[in-house]
């Protein structure tokens, strides 16, 4: 019954008509994304340095190849999301240093921005949306002519510029672009990373306004979403490793088809004062974490304060309390000698596993990934993990009452999800004020595009079963709308409407306006539906006549236009007319 509600032609957005003119004869799915080169002569995208074509990138200068790779990544996103409004990415290459690859983000945010035609506008009041997403939901360009995303990349970094992801040991520019563009499209919060404050704080509104990404962040320890938290609660939530999860249905419905079972897990099981999962780093030596893993009590290793290591807790020499360590999990302080040396000494003492916690020199650092030194690693036969200094000291503080701990993987939980199947966001406990909640957790397996680590095994695929980026963007408002009429495919009476400017019947252009109706169908869609199942030509013509008369009575078409429609229907071969 949705179709009984019509829109007047005046309510059809002008941009939609223009869009149709541009796209006549083509599928309307997707979004146009324009890369605007703002580099000066002979730099960045205009770098004239000759290069050989590589990996499907046909550019013959470095600048050309950069631009082609940018547009390739933009087109990849353009083919994945739907928007009636072209997305503009203001783009440049600048000398940013060899350790910097580049950045991208939304240029402007909007809240309470309204909409045109059938477009839904903001899903939540008082909520910030990035420019491109706001435009899509408004159905119009809210900041006409201005960029939606700003991308600045490093001309100092030696990217792989091919399009085929065959990057070898180099870093694939297209993959990095897909990641950073996703931030600009909405995979980010606008909560301050340093203070936890919402954007838009003023004297009248000291709480500011939340953003649409934050509305889907939930702290599993208290069940609160970020938009319902105080500033202090958000700050605390941002560093709750493993406890900050996504609460959007599109992501969580696809978690099971993307993430693999076997969530790596380091967990103190007693005493209660420090029990729970811990953030940890892994080692490049020794056995990988597995199920059932290792469980046991923790014993602090002691060794001589000698030339190998000045502290009795650094594990750089043979343990002096080897008998106490044997059969237990050894706890060692980082520093002086290599990780593999410490782990080898623990293995020799009969430890069942090894924990190395940061020393005072690394007091503010995250748990390190531990490299092999090429000498001692092969002698390590027990799993080894690292902890922050704070976590290490909290265990040390409880050794008097006994600390039980498990190291392994939980075979019943997917890596990158919590035990309820919700995707985890990256909320490390470090150090820093605020953290990177605008990413999936690094424990995700398979690797996801939107983890903070942009891993070399990533594909260019953006959705399940390879990835969960599109799913998150869908949750925040990038609804699928193949014909870009403002009605989500799931509720559109025709997700691929004929949006031509005029009514066309069997190839005959009537010149009568083609209306878009509430529910997402057009005049052309309805006339096409009259043809389906028409017993004969006469039935089809009579249905069209009824429709045309209704339009005429409503004042939506003129008498001449009605006649044109009837003439085209009558002359058509639809329904079997000879």
């Amino acid at each position: 019954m949705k179709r009984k509600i019509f829109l007047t032609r005046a309510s059809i957005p002008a941009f939609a008509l223009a869009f149709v003119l541009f796209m006549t004869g083509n599928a309307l799915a997707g979004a146009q994304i324009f890369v605007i080169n703002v580099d000066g002569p002979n730099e960045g995208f205009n770098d004239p340095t000759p290069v050989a074509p590589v990996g499907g990138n046909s550019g013959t200068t470095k600048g050309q190849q950069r631009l082609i790779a940018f547009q390739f990544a933009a087109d990849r996103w353009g083919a994945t999301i739907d928007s009636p409004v072209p997305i503009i990415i203001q783009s440049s290459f600048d000398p940013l240093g060899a350790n910097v690859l580049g950045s991208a983000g939304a240029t402007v945010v909007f809240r309470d921005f309204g909409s045109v035609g059938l477009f839904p506008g903001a899903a939540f009041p008082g909520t910030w949306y990035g420019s491109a997403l706001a435009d899509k939901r408004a159905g119009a360009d809210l900041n006409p002519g201005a960029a939606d995303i700003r991308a600045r990349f490093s001309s100092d970094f030696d990217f792989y510029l091919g399009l085929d992801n065959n990057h070898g040991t180099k870093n694939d520019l297209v993959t990095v672009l897909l990641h950073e563009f996703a931030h600009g499209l909405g995979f980010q919060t606008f909560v301050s990373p340093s203070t936890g404050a919402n954007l838009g704080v003023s004297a009248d509104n000291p709480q500011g306004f939340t953003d649409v990404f934050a509305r889907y962040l939930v702290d599993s320890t208290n069940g609160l979403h970020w938009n319902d938290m105080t500033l202090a609660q958000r700050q605390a939530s941002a560093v709750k490793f493993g406890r900050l999860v996504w609460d959007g249905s599109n992501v969580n419905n696809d978690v099971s088809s993307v993430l693999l079972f076997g969530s790596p897990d380091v967990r103190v099981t007693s005493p209660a004062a420090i029990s729970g999962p811990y953030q940890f780093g892994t080692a490049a030596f020794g056995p990988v974490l597995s199920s059932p893993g290792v469980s046991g009590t923790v014993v602090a290793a002691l060794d001589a304060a000698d030339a190998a290591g000045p502290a009795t807790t650094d594990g750089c020499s043979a343990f002096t309390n080897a008998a106490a360590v044997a059969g237990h999990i050894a706890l060692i302080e980082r520093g002086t000698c290599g990780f593999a040396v410490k782990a080898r000494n623990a293995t020799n003492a009969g430890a069942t596993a090894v924990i190395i916690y940061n020393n005072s020199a690394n007091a503010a650092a995250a748990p390190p990934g531990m490299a092999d030194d090429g000498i001692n690693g092969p002698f390590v036969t027990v799993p080894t993990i690292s902890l922050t200094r704070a976590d290490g000291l909290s265990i040390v503080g409880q050794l008097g009452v006994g600390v039980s701990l498990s190291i392994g993987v939980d075979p019943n939980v997917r890596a990158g999800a919590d035990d309820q199947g919700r995707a985890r966001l990256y909320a490390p406990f470090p150090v820093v004020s605020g953290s990177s909640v605008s990413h999936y957790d690094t424990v995700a397996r398979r690797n996801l595009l939107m983890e903070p680590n942009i891993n070399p095994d990533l594909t260019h695929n953006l959705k399940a079963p390879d990835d969960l980026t599109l799913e998150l963007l869908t949750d925040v408002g990038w609804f699928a709308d193949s014909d870009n009429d403002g009605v989500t495919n799931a509720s559109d009476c025709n997700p691929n409407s004929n949006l031509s400017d005029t009514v066309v019947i069997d190839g005959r252009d009537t010149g009568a306006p083609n209306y878009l109706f509430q529910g997402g169908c057009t005049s052309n869609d309805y006339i096409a539906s009259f043809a389906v199942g028409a017993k004969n030509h006469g039935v089809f013509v009579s249905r069209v006549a009824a429709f045309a008369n209704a339009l005429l009575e409503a004042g939506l078409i003129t008498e001449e236009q009605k006649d044109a429609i009837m003439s085209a229907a009558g002359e058509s071969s639809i329904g079997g007319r000879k």
Partner: protein
Amino acid sequence: MTDINRGKKGLKGYLRFLPLFVLSAIIIGSIVAGTRVFSESPKSLIAAPEPMPTPQKTRKYIATREITVDKQTGKIRKPTDQELNELVSSLSQMLDRPTDQLAARTLSNGGEAVDLDGAFAPVAIARPRADGSMEVRCVTSMEEAADFLGLVEDDTQ
């Protein structure tokens, strides 16, 4: 086609009430047509990059790990003072962006827009692995960048 077929299902009834539908459509359509997007005056199309933003202050850092691949030897080493200063300057300009001073402008319907002025733009950075490849991480704050690159604030400055 599925949707078209669905539309066909109630076609006779639909046609019978078509005039009534159209009449209601005029009323409802005029309401919908009254929904407007509120934006400000169009800006000129971007033609030039904005100037590099200035961070509030640039802190001094010490490099504690080898993050630079020497262009001459290809070996990994700590950055020189100049390289470190350039790196910190670059990162500070992108990540040390004050967000509490960003001003909102009011749209004609009471909604708001905020120009982010380069803030909230995550940055991808890299450090070398032992095999010569580069490990990449996307960060959202200077503190995260410093942690990843092994940069420690210099308290003596």
